[in-house]
């Protein structure tokens, strides 16, 4: 019964997550960017923009310019989370890929860094007056959710182990549509429930910053307005109408 409920919820959450994200990304991609608005100095070539975006996504360059503490906490949290997520691939692959095995030692401890980063980010929401002012309940809840995921995960890794072999059978069963029983371990169930919530809220929350950053015109545009005419849909329409009616 429990296994069935979780199996169905995971299919549902995956569907919401994927469909929601695809919908959002399509919306961003299809909405026109009528004017050139890169924040300058900006790269003058496409490769330069790719490099700028890489620095932004990999190192949080702008945040680093802004505030070293926020940068430190935010960057540590994100990088640690990435390691943790990649480490979790071992529960979804058989045999486990070599590189997943190689990062396993780092991934194991990254959970602590992730939790520490989250705690520090949460602390700012109470301690810094300006950040307290701009925080809404959802900003706190999102951090609590992530901290819950990290804490329950660490619990299983270091305090009360779950039956990891059975869990892997369950996850592989989900992928192969050959359902297997889920260990009815309270910490595991909390961990998985929180992950489900995260997947459900992702496409309708501020977590959209993850795909959104790639579509930010102030960061992804090439500074070449004088050299190459940037088309604006509504201007092009005006022009073609003018041509049709024989005007100038």
């Amino acid at each position, binding site marked *: 019964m429990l296994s069935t409920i979780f199996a169905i919820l995971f299919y549902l959450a995956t569907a919401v997550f994927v469909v929601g994200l695809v919908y*959002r990304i399509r*919306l*961003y991609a299809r*909405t*026109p*960017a*009528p*004017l*050139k*608005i890169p*924040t*300058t*100095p*900006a*790269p*003058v070539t496409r490769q330069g923009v790719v490099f700028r975006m890489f620095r*932004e996504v990999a190192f949080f360059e*702008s*945040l680093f*310019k*802004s*505030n070293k503490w*926020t940068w430190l906490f*935010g960057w540590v949290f994100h990088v640690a989370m990435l390691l943790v997520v990649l480490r979790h691939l071992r529960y979804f692959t058989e045999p486990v890929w070599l590189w997943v095995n190689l990062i396993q030692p780092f991934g194991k401890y990254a959970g602590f860094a992730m939790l520490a980063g989250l705690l520090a980010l949460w602390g*700012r929401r109470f301690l*810094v*007056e*300006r*950040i307290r*002012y*701009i*925080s*809404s*309940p*959802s*900003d706190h*809840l999102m951090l609590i959710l992530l901290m819950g995921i990290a804490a329950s995960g660490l619990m299983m890794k270091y305090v009360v182990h779950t039956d990891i072999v059975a869990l892997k059978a369950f996850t592989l069963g989900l992928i192969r549509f050959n359902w297997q029983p889920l260990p009815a371990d309270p910490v595991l169930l909390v961990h998985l429930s929180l992950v489900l919530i995260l997947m459900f*809220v992702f496409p*309708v*929350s*501020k977590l*959209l*910053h993850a795909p*959104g*950053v790639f*579509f*930010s*015109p*102030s*960061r992804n545009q090439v*500074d070449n*307005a*004088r*050299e190459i*005419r*940037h*088309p*604006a849909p*509504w*201007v092009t329409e005006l022009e073609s109408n003018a041509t049709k009616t024989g005007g100038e």
Partner: protein
Amino acid sequence: MADQDTIQINTLFEIPTLNPGAMKDSSPFVAAPAHQEALGFPGELVDDWQTRAIEKLGELLKKSRALQVYMDGCVKCGACTDKCHYFLGTGDPKNMPVARQDLLRKIYRRYFTFSGKYFPKLVGAEDLTREVLDEWYSYFHQCSQCRRCSVYCPYGIDTAEISMAAREIMDHIGKGQKYCNEILGKVHQIGNNLGLPEKALIMTMEDLEEDIEDDTGVKVRIPVNEKGADILLVTPSADFFAEPHIDGLIGYAKVFHQAGVSWTVSSYASEAANFAMFIGSQEQMKLLTDRIRKAAEDLGVKRIIFGECGHAWRVAYNFMNTLSGPFDFLDPDYPVPQHICEFTWDLIERGKLKLDKSANDHMTLTFHDSCNVARGSRMGDKPGGQFEIPRAIIKAVCNNFVDMAADTIHEATFCCGGGGGLLTDDLMEIRTKGASPRMTALQEVVEEQGVTHMAAICAICKTQFAKVMPTYGIGMDRIVSLHQLVSNAIVLDGQEGSEVDEETTEELATA
């Protein structure tokens, strides 16, 4: 009067404690029906303003990827919270960029997102009420669209885009700003922000030619509407009469004269400024750039050069090609458009100007990077040319130059406090307070490095500084045009009483 009001500033990076509601009542005069209707906007607040505002927001979201992504993407990290000069100057938390954005974002969430429709309290979504509209009107007119916050945002969220959208919405429900909309009407009707007609413009320029001749003994022309000239100069109309702007115009004229090129001003497009950007109306913006295109075609020029104006250069550099291009009827050997600084620097680099640096020896200069030039455009071939070229010119024409603190220049420059359609007397309080970060940085170099003057390349900056500097204990004559410095140093062929040895020129050429 100025003395007793002098504002004392403490340390540069003191972040104020929050003072909620401090600037709530600072809002500009509302546009009169005539000014609204001239631009095709409703004369006054329409009855169903709420519905129409939400409709307009929906329309803008479909038209602007920036707006859509910026509405969704903010994680409230706080990176921008201490970056706005209006927040630093007032302590009003709604002047923190993220809080300013949230004034629109909370409405976006309420009407356009799942979470805001069903869990408004949780995500800070709110109904669009009269109070919200009043807040919009106050706080979206306390943003000078300077983009400083966008430099520090990890997603590049640009509050300028959001305040433009908010102003566009307010215009469409009949609550426009008097200053911007009245001025736009004048440009449509007469050709410039000041409403200076052709005859007056020609006479003013003739007077100016006489002044230059009296001063130098050389006949330097400032042609108006001269067909067949090579270059059309489009410059902010303040350059035609205001101080210190006009000294910059004299500088351009002397540079053109020495370069031996033919040039002209157009009375039809006698305005570089494009206030349509401030109100977020691309349609209005195109009407104004179309005037420049038409003037260039009618006069048969080969090149277009823009004078010293910050947002005008952003519109010209980044938007004009999109809105009114392609400019394939102009000489393809030159960028369209060019900045006057690019033109002057090219001449200096090639050693074509005789310059007597000692003419500026009575001054120690610093340079104020204007926000729209710094963060919304470029000069030259390389990123950052907008910082290098003006400084290179100053160093070529002055012996004494000092930069202000590193985190107040280049891309981190502070707005003068009067940009974005705020340069009006009804917003004097926010203008004065918003100038405080720049004034603090200036006072620092005045006290420690003996700086006497600050040069700028923006008409709004110059007007704003001339007005607010006395409040900070700095004389209004301490703000100068960059080309005023060039004008002082340039030695015209046949000029009386000035000799420059060839060595200096050569030195400059290789500098």
